[in-house]
């Protein structure tokens, strides 16, 4: 096995090297090979981390690395100032200044730098971090492989004179290293640094196409996440002023944070919530959808936004049992509900995916807020399942975009006939998002079974669940509206598309069927990193059982719930695969649809005789309910309520602090 410092280097520094190589080498195939090799190295390395288990790490020449981090921190912030001035975007400028001034004052004026240098260890790689590392390295790498060919087609379609794909892949590959660093970081200044690097890469990649819309939306993502960065710095300042350690394990070492420290904890959670695009900060993620689709898959669904929920989850022990915990649950649950409702009204595929992502991140944050062993287990399982399923769906959306050159749901009508392969993969992705036996539903089921301590959150979950059914089913439904024909030709796609797609499909079934092993081998330990009291889930036979842990009857010794995993997969196989294989239909058995006897021809046409016997094409339109559920109708409410929830969240932390002083 590799020495541990080498493993850390591969996780964080290898992507940097690979990114530089990708940037220099501008030949399509050579570049592709480097990305693939880096992907393999990262995947193997993440498995080594899993085998190695929990550990800590401080770099050998710490002073040098501290200096590097400091210099890069200020360079990044100076770049934000430059962006703010050159784009004349005052919000970017203001929130860059609110970071750089307090940071400089804190590090050099207050003497925070010495305190930060004393933090040991620099990195803590516990099981929760390993879960994140696996997600980043495996799903993230597959998305980077997908991007190789995607960017080629993307630029071909745009008729670019000079390829900018090198620049694109540079940021994508670099991002993997930054994410690994972020989840391993223990020292708050390292956390802040990697946090800022992901924000920077997010800005660069959203702006990649350099259209006005892309630059505007990139700037919005930048200033919103800069608010998060500012909150992180303020949290550091308060921690330092109160004499608390400037590291995550330091904050968490004493169990529930003392009332004085609840405010910095709330600020750190707030930083995470902005990164996870929780309401009212959802607009940056929606705007980010203008970026090429691999960006959305990598940053805005599978990994970067997960950093936000990761931080909230990481801090769960510090706010366990406090009112802050309840407020975090409500912010998440409200986001889950509102974003699911808004998704119904979206006519663009990627925006549906974006809202669904925001909603699921809300669910995970709500689970962290519920803060029972079962809820934490649900949260960690959801992080894994969501990364795989949503990564797949975004890659599908990208592939579809390159088949029909549109992102509109209405243009996807009848795609089952035009692109049967992608339709099947897309259908698996969609079903895996909200239906049994797949993992996301398992997570949601566990979330609901754990939510009894915060009933309001449970009710919001319930309404969100219903909305989830509607927006997924009606979108998938548009794919299926085909003429009565047999033997659709399977589309041919580049391996760079199909290999990541099929591997992710395999992943969905792998983690779904093997959820018991995923739980015992991986998630159980990660849960123990967050909550120590009791083990909520037990593997029993072919399924999972929720133990008799209940707020209602403390004497309960019976199981609370039961989820028969394998029987459900067998049912799924019977329900979907057997008809798929065995339902034979002969061409002569097909008939055109019923059009009141006015059908103008046989099965090959969808025309009918309208007024004055004019041949008219049947036109179907999806339902979007924009009058009731559209952004214009709902946003005044969602913004008001979510801002109120955030304000109460801080009020709760401030009151606790005030009460303690």
């Amino acid at each position, binding site marked *: 096995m590799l020495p541990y410092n080498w493993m850390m280097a591969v996780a964080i520094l290898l992507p940097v090297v690979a990114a530089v190589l990708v940037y220099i080498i501008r030949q399509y195939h050579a570049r592709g090979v480097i990305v693939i090799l880096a992907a393999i190295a990262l995947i193997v390395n993440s498995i080594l981390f899993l085998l190695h288990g929990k550990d800590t790490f401080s770099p050998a020449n710490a002073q040098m690395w501290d200096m590097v981090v400091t210099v890069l921190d200020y360079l990044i912030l100076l770049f934000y100032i430059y962006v703010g001035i050159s784009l004349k975007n005052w919000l970017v400028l203001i929130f860059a200044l609110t970071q750089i001034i307090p940071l400089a004052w804190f590090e050099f004026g207050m003497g925070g730098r010495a305190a930060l240098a004393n933090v040991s260890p620099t990195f803590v790689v516990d099981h929760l971090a390993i879960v994140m590392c696996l997600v980043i390295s495996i799903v993230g790498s597959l998305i980077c492989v997908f991007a190789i060919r995607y960017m080629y087609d993307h630029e071909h379609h745009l008729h670019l004179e000079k390829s900018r794909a090198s620049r694109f892949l540079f940021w994508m590959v670099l991002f993997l290293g930054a994410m690994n660093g972020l989840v391993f970081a223990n020292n708050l200044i390292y956390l802040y640094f990697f946090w800022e690097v992901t924000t920077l890469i997010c800005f660069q990649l959203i702006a990649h196409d350099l259209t006005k819309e892309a630059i505007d939306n990139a700037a919005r993502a930048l200033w919103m996440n800069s608010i998060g960065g500012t909150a992180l710095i303020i949290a550091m300042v308060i921690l330092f002023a109160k004499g608390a350690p400037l590291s995550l394990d330091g904050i968490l070492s004493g169990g529930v944070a003392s009332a004085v420290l609840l405010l910095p904890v709330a600020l750190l959670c707030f930083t995470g919530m902005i990164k996870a695009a929780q309401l009212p900060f959802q607009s940056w993620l929606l705007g980010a959808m203008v970026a090429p689709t691999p960006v959305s898959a990598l940053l805005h669904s599978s990994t970067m936004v997960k950093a936000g929920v990761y931080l909230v989850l990481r801090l769960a022990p510090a706010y366990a049992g406090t009112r802050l915990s309840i407020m975090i649950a409500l912010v998440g649950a409200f986001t889950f509900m509102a974003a699911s409702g808004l998704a119904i009204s979206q006519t663009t595929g990627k925006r549906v995916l974006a809202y669904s992502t925001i909603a699921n991140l809300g669910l995970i944050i709500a689970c962290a807020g519920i803060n029972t062993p079962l809820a934490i287990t649900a949260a960690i399982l959801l992080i894994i399942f969501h990364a795989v399923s949503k990564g797949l769906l975004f890659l599908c959306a990208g592939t579809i975009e390159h088949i029909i050159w549109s992102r509109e749901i209405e243009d996807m009508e009848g795609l089952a006939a035009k692109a049967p392969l992608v339709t099947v993969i897309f259908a698996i992705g969609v079903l895996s998002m909200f239906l049994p036996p797949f993992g996301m539903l398992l997570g949601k089921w566990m979330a609901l079974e754990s939510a009894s301590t915060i009933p309001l959150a449970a009710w919001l979950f319930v309404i969100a669940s219903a909305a989830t*059914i509607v927006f997924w089913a009606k979108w998938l439904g548009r794919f299926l509206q085909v003429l009565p024909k047999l033997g659709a030709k399977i589309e041919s796609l580049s391996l760079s598309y199909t290999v990541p797609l099929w591997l992710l499909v395999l992943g969905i079934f792998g983690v779904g069927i093997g959820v018991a092993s995923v739980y015992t081998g991986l998630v159980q330990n990660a849960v123990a990193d967050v909550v120590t009291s009791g083990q909520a889930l037990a593997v029993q036979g072919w399924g999972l059982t929720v133990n008799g842990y209940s707020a209602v009857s403390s004497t309960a010794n019976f199981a609370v719930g039961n989820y028969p995993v394998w029987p459900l997969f067998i049912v799924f196989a019977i329900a979907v695969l057997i008809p798929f294989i065995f*339902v034979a239909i002969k061409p002569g058995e097909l008939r055109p649809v019923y059009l009141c006897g006015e059908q103008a021809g046989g099965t090959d046409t969808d025309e009918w005789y309208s007024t004055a016997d004019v041949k008219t094409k049947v036109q179907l339109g999806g339902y979007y309910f924009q009058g009731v559920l559209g952004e214009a109708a709902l946003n005044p409410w969602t913004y008001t309520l979510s801002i109120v929830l955030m304000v109460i969240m801080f009020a709760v932390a401030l009151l606790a602090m005030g009460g303690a002083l």
Partner: protein
Amino acid sequence: MNAWIIAIVTVIVAPFIGGFLAGIDRRITARLQGRFGPPILQPFYDFFKLLGKSKIAASRLQLMWIYAYLVLMITALLFLVLRLDILLMMFILGFAGVCFALGGFSSKSPYSHLGANRELMQMLAYEPVLLLLALGVYAQNGSFLISQIYASPTPLISRLWPIFIALLVILTIKLRKSPFDLATSHHAHQELIKGIMTEYSGPYYALIELTEWYEIVLLLGIVSLFVANPLWVGIVIALAAYLLELFVDNVTARMTVGWMVRFVWAVGITLCILNLIWFWVFAAIKGVS
């Protein structure tokens, strides 16, 4: 081994009960409308006649989804009789509904498209109530397992009667009765034709009939859970609820989709949540004292 026998017996017997209830439905409805009505066994005659018809379809896709619809409906019923997790049962029932809607989407048929969209709106209306029902069961029993409902000496209805009323509203939607026979209807409606089922015929249509019979048994089974001890009282209540649905069907006119969603959310969900709030407050008081 015992579970296997229960499962097999359920799969075989349930359609007979469902078909028989459907026959009673047609007879009573006819009498309420001043007609004589068909024999009680008419649904079975229809079923076998449909099986003998030639196979005709509008696409291959739509057939896949209705097989899934049948299999998942049976699975949900098995969850009930094997007394497993009620929350998960609701999700499986939801999956069955999704499959049916996707079957409706799987052809370029305007009537089927309209019906499928309305089916989804119906799900938007009833799904929260079914899930809140499961939360109510947990609030009372401290467990989501149906076996605990049977083990508990207190019947659900004694504390969950508001949720029970909401369930009756949902039953009207699920049984496709007026005023909520929106996605498809047992009676002819000109603008709807047969809604989501328009494009099914012959043996495939028989498959949907069969699924509906399973569904009737499942839904009445859920109603009977409210008085699980002794079970016969629960069954009587379930049959009474079924009769009530028939009367409601015949004395009301069909409403619009928007009205349905608003009504169910305003009445059904509110009832459920008030019920759960009561539990919460009750638990809080008990905790203090």
